[in-house]
């Protein structure tokens, strides 16, 4: 790799600017507001684990702070649930600490992969329903219900971490997951 290429690759990191240093508003007041939102989240019945992770992530990522503020401003339950699922998605995304290159997928294989993902999620959903449903699973995994609903309804690749948490919670000993269509 040339010196020029090395500089280019590292320059993504050089512009690192976080919510803590990049907000146009007063930092302490923004932070205090997150804690105020956390208290309201607690009153709404969200789990301590989710709320703690939300605040910790929001202190580092302005976009998550934005989502928490959107949650506060929202009255519609369906929309609030969507925001909770978004926040959980971002908590999961922010747990990645380095660049990763997964197997590149050929465009022509996407249709088959989509079918495999759907079949996997449908099959796992059947197991969940046999063992008390989404509500019970949410209690066991501490993953918010809206996130679990999105997990099963969406056609996105399943996160291996999430699948493992579900498998442990349900005491499932054997789950076949393909590295090609998981993340």
């Amino acid at each position, binding site marked *: 790799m040339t010196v020029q290429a090395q500089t280019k690759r590292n320059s993504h990191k050089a*512009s*690192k600017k976080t919510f803590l240093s990049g907000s146009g508003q007063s930092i302490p007041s923004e932070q205090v507001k997150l804690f105020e939102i956390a208290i309201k989240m607690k009153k709404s019945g969200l789990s301590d684990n989710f709320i703690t992770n939300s605040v910790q992530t929001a202190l580092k990522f302005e*976009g998550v702070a934005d*989502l928490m503020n*959107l949650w506060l401003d929202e009255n519609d339950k369906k929309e609030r649930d969507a925001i909770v699922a*978004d926040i959980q998605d971002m908590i999961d995304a922010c747990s990645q600490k380095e660049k990763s290159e997964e197997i590149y997928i050929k465009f022509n294989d*996407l249709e088959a992969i*989509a079918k495999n993902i759907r079949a996997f999620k449908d099959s796992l959903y059947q197991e969940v329903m046999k063992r008390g449903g989404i509500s019970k699973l949410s209690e066991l995994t501490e993953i918010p219900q809206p996130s679990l609903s999105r997990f099963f309804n969406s056609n*996105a690749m399943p996160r291996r971490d999430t699948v493992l948490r579900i498998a442990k919670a349900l005491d499932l000993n054997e789950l076949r997951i393909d590295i090609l269509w998981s993340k």
Partner: protein
Amino acid sequence: MEIIITQWALDSYLELKAGKAFSDEEYWNEIRPDVLLLQKHPNDHKFTQGKFWSPAQDRNHKNISNGYKMKWHNKGDGKVQLRLTVGILDETCFLCEAYIKHDEKEDRRRLAKFKVYLELIRQGSYTVRGILI
């Protein structure tokens, strides 16, 4: 300019495809060629058309650093408004997330997520699923 397909972009493609947000014909004849224009960004007249390309803004109408939106109108049987968030950092293009803009609320949520994606890209904490060529 290299166009990187992130995991987020691939997931959103799978979601839209399953939901029949666009037809195969629209994908091959319009959407994909438009996205490939990013290879020569900003040197195509479409990048001057606000209905097709604009800086992304957050809930406070502040421009999101390095963030842009590509837009398509009335696609698929549902005649939906499609959006693709794109990060341009150091002459590299990152496809982040495609979605149907159902309403302004949906847009604000997606753009909040987009801010996070861009920060993760800056930190080098993201997953590559391919290069669009």
